[in-house]
């Protein structure tokens, strides 16, 4: 491709940096909002039980997606002990960009899928420096951030760890 000014097309391809930097304020709503507030203020973990299929909804939400039945509101929720067993986990070592900050997070962490004793799964970080101790079915328990550090976010739960024998 030639330009009319007589220059031959060079191989330098230009572009432009495009930073998407947008702040948001997300309404958690009466169900998830209450769940987050209970976690922040009282350190409690809750789930709602569908009155038709009886499965636990974590997080509690207004409707059971399968039954299309309105789920019970707080305080008609089931309190969870925060204990359960490890179903599966993976150690994430590859650095990843955090889309909320644009920063590359280098620290490896363990992502665990836990079956809580009440019969519902939950995903969170697992804190265990010795990976060989992680086994399917291992008992784990929730550890919260100290109250003054909790903000009403899912990360008010610091991590899950193996229950000490």
């Amino acid at each position, binding site marked *: 491709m030639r330009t009319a000014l007589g220059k031959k097309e060079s191989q330098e391809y*230009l*572009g432009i940096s495009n*930073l998407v930097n947008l702040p948001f304020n997300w309404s958690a709503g009466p169900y998830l909002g209450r769940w987050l507030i209970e976690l922040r203020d009282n350190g409690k973990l809750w789930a709602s039980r569908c009155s038709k299929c009886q499965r636990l909804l974590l997080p509690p939400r207004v409707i059971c997606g399968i039954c299309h039945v309105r789920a019970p509101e707080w305080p008609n929720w089931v309190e969870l002990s925060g204990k359960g067993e490890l179903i599966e986990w993976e150690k994430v070592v590859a650095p990843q960009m955090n889309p909320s900050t644009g920063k590359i997070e280098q620290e490896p962490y363990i992502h665990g899928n836990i079956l809580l004793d009440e019969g519902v799964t939950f995903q969170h970080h697992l804190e265990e420096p010795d990976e060989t101790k992680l086994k399917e079915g291992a008992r784990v328990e929730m550890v919260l951030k100290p109250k003054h550090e909790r903000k009403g976010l899912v990360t008010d739960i610091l991590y899950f760890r193996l229950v000490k024998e």
Partner: protein
Amino acid sequence: MAKKKTMAPHVVPGRLYVPYFNYYGALGSEFYKQLRDNKKITGVKCPTCKKVLVPPRSVCAVCFNNLNELVEVSSRGTVQTYTVIYYTYSPSNQPADIPYAYGIIQLDGADSGLCHLLGEIAPDKITIGMRVEAVFKDKCEGNILDIKYFRPV
């Protein structure tokens, strides 16, 4: 009837912060190289519609021809319309401090308008039809703000 205890709405602040890099493509790169290296503004001519489009684009919307011959247009032109921005927001990606004016400028030789800032003039003195010329940065980088603004001739 007992009043139902309601909870204050819980709002979670968050942010999307993701850097991207979008390519101009071969034709777009040539346009920006002419700006950066030669301080020239270029457009592309559609052979069927006989119109010169600035900034250049590689497909004509009307006849769907592929366009790839750059032609130089003047860095002087006429203001077709304009507006003045008085508000700001955060985080701001605005190209200038408020209040600032920008307009659609038809450069001599072009059949389309170029959207750009209008500078060195008080906002209430801008008129439609006024003649303006491009003011380039000393050090150009290969983006549209290599033209600082258009000022009255």
